[in-house]
């Protein structure tokens, strides 16, 4: 399969302006991330809160301008597009947001919200708009009778379905899912995940799935990128691959076992995530790593993939 998305050395540095009484500070939210997303596959991005996964999603969709690096969508350099070209192209790359509660304008009915993608893109659907909207609502498992409701009249899970319907209205090829279930009840999470799986096979979508929940990512994705403080520390080529980075191992060990009889020892991570404003030299994980050596504290390990299973560690497992 050809690559739908190619990300090369993507970085974003946020800086707070200095003034007479404070120094300018900058943080590397995303630091040199590269990966390929072939058409039809699902790549998961996991990491703790604040590791830059949401920023990465916004950089890829160019909702935030990257500081450096390149993004190619379907072979097209996104960063070279003019704002007008970019607006046109957005029809093909959509996003489902983490917070469904504020993802719909409170003054819009569901009909208006779901019809809005056609309005902003100036696309006329083949059928009358009311039919198109009803079809889209049905596709995401909503009763078309809800079409005239306002967002405050429906539940969180229903709102997320509306968000998905809006994203799919223009038949995109890429869907970036930014923690689409993080703010929903567990039972509703399962429904949304099931819906996303069905839609993927039905519409032949390619997903970039961002989550902090490793067991969910393992269930949902083909490949997994593990991020720590803005860098990809490990790229698992499939979900069964054993962890090679000590951080990934800790993440995997700390997921819950469904069987309560299978007790095991969870070794909690020591220490705090370093401040992204003043990263220590060397590996950002060194201070919390049981394996760390003197080398780890001086030299930043590069992501290397001799075995097809890339890891950024001086002492991989």
């Amino acid at each position: 399969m050809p690559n739908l998305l190619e990300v090369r050395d993507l970085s974003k540095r946020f800086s707070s302006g200095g003034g007479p009484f404070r120094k300018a500070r900058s943080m590397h939210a995303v630091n040199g991330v590269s990966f390929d997303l072939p058409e039809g596959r699902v790549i998961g991005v996991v990491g703790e809160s604040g590791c830059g996964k949401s920023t990465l999603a916004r950089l890829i969709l160019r909702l935030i301008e990257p500081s450096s690096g390149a993004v190619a969508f379907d072979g097209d350099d996104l960063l070279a597009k003019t704002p007008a070209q970019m607006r046109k192209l957005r029809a093909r790359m959509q996003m489902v947001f983490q917070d469904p509660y504020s993802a719909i304008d409170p003054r819009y009915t569901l009909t208006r919200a779901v019809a809005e993608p056609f309005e902003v893109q100036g696309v006329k659907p083949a059928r009358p708009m009311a039919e198109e909207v009803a079809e889209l609502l049905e596709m995401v498992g909503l009763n078309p009778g809800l079409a005239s409701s306002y967002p405050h009249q429906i539940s969180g899970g229903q709102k997320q379905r509306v968000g998905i319907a809006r994203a799919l209205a223009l038949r995109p090829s890429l869907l970036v899912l930014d923690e689409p279930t993080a703010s929903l009840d567990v039972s509703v999470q399962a429904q949304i995940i099931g819906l996303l799986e069905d839609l993927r096979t039905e519409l032949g979508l390619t997903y970039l799935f961002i989550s902090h929940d490793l067991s969910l990512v393992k269930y949902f994705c083909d490949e997994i990128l593990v991020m720590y403080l803005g860098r990809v520390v490990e790229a698992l080529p499939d979900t069964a691959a054993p962890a090679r980075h000590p951080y990934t191992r800790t993440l995997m060990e700390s997921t819950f076992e469904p069987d309560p009889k299978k007790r095991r020892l969870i070794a909690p991570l020591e220490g705090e995530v370093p401040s992204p404003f003043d990263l220590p030299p060397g590996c950002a994980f060194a201070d919390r790593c049981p394996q760390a050596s003197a080398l780890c504290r001086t030299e930043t390990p590069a992501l290397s993939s001799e075995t097809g299973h890339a890891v950024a560690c001086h002492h991989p497992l």
Partner: protein
Amino acid sequence: MNVSQMAIRSLDAFARMSIGRAFASGIGIVAGGFLILLVLVAIFAPWIAPFDYAAQNLLNANASPGWPHLLGTDEFGRDVLSRVIFGARTSLSVSATAIAISMAAGMTLGAAAGYFGGVFERAVMTVVDLTWSFPDILIALIFVAIIGPGLTSTTFAIAIAYLAQFTRLTRAQIVRLKRETFIEATINLGAKPSHILLRHLMPNAIAPVIVVGMLAIGDGIVLEATLGFFGLGAQPPTPSWGAMMSSGTAQLFLSPWVIIFPGVAVAVTVIAVNLFGDELIRALDIRDRLRGA
């Protein structure tokens, strides 16, 4: 369907609208009813007023309230009731026009500042805040110096006096709304900035601005009366509540009705505006959005 059913239906529809809900309480009905009545009086003043507001009758100057001059006459023998009725016209139209200008300008400036941010925002807010640091009377004096005393000066002075409030309120709303997920989601659909601003940001920002505008009309009436009192507003013989009180001060002890009735008109109108404004805030459920502006 007959006419009365239609009337009931449309009243019912009005009551369900957010603004209609302000009439749900007793206070809302009394205050809102008074304001509607006042607007009608102002519009139909020539048919309601019993006398010509400018007709002098020096032989009957300073007549006490009675028949035929219900509220008495002033030092030129003009009918006080007719002048109060025509004064409502001046006060309401000047205040409403000024606030409309101020709201339109303030919303445009505030929305642009909040949306574009950066140096533009800082420049707009600095200039707008500067207008706030001048006393209203001083602004009026500047306009009087430029274009001479009269209702135009008064209107512009009131408009500038409230510009900062509308600009700041709109900007605060836009800045808050800009961070909502639905804005990012709509940008990601490929929407132009004009679509974001006009279809999402402004419609969500407008309710508190309207309420503040409503309340500002009350303040505008007081400011108009103040400027009129100092002779900077309506010029004789145009009746204005403030100017009437000013001319009444000379005969304060001889014919107090000349100053009392316009004063009562100002007080009752402003109280009604404020009470109705409070009901509107409650009806639109925007109390917390008015903070921090």
